[in-house]
């Protein structure tokens, strides 16, 4: 006997993501999901973002890693609430993990929630967490050919941060070639060249983020 199902395979994840979205809306929290390879500078970019925006917004961070509390401790050291998720081997975060992590936060005291996804350029792409924006970071040492090799993540990101720009000449990174491929994959996404640890380029990125947060707030 044939039974028609016709439903999304990730329906369970998507339904929980929708619940997360409603919860964030209820508390007026803007949520950004940062995705990148291991070592691209996700945590450093978050720290630079915190430094730029902490006077304007109350910020909290969810850290996704396969193991360890290293990242959450780095964030907490700056007086920012941080929850660590250890996926225990899973290569991406799912909406149920975010739901559990959020329970450890006082959302009444949060305006901006930054989620640091597990370091991976493939798997986080297909999973809705209930965030307002997915943003990816590529670092210069990874090479200008990465959008050719990992197109999916570039295509679904609302903005692309290019980190470690102070090393561009050392790694012969071809910025024009990189920009051309990203434009083909995702013409609407702005590219923000930064050096997170030196604080360069952070203004343009945080202005974009602020505009998104304010747009959400004025939309109610």
């Amino acid at each position, binding site marked *: 006997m*044939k*039974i028609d*199902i*016709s439903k*999304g395979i990730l329906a369970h994840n998507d339904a929980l993501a929708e619940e997360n979205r409603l919860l964030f809306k209820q508390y007026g929290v803007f949520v950004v999901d940062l995705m990148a390879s291991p070592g691209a500078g996700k945590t450093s970019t978050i720290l630079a973002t915190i430094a730029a925006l902490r006077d304007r917004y109350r910020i909290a961070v969810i850290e996704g890693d396969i193991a360890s509390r290293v990242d959450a401790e780095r964030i907490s050291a700056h007086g920012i609430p941080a929850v660590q998720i250890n996926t225990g081997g899973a290569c991406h975060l799912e909406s149920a993990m975010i739901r559990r992590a959020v329970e450890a936060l006082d959302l009444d005291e949060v305006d901006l929630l930054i989620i640091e996804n597990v370091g991976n350029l493939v798997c986080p792409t*297909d999973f809705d967490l209930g965030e307002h924006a997915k943003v990816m970071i590529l670092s210069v040492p990874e090479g200008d050919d990465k959008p*050719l090799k990992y*197109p*999916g993540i570039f295509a679904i990101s609302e903005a692309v941060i290019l980190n470690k720009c102070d090393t561009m000449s050392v790694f012969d990174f071809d910025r024009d070639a990189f920009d051309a491929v990203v434009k083909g994959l995702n013409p609407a996404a702005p590219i923000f060249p930064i050096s997170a640890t030196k604080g360069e380029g952070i203004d343009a990125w945080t202005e974009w983020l602020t505009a998104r947060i304010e747009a959400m707030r004025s939309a109610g």
Partner: protein
Amino acid sequence: MHEMGICDGILKSATEAAEAEGASCINRIEVTFGELTQIVEDALQFAFEVLRQDTIAADATLGITILEARSRCMDCSAEFRHDRYEVKCPKCGSYLCSLLQGRELRIESIDVD
């Protein structure tokens, strides 16, 4: 290997639907993927062979249909097929395009006894 997570979702939906109909075993599961998803067909079949064990789908086969990526140009309304690397209207050259299909991750049907 996020195919394990995907496959877990397939088996959950299939098992729920089969049990709701009072079926005792699942013979076949049909799924559809858009070619812009991050699914590797071989990895999914491998995950399926592992995860179906000890379920009512233990002897089931997995049928996979892949949908090509198609978009519509917002400037000239042309509809066209494209790869995952560049979404550009072949008629007028615009990059302003809206995706029609290619990101599906859907379980279509199951065959049960």
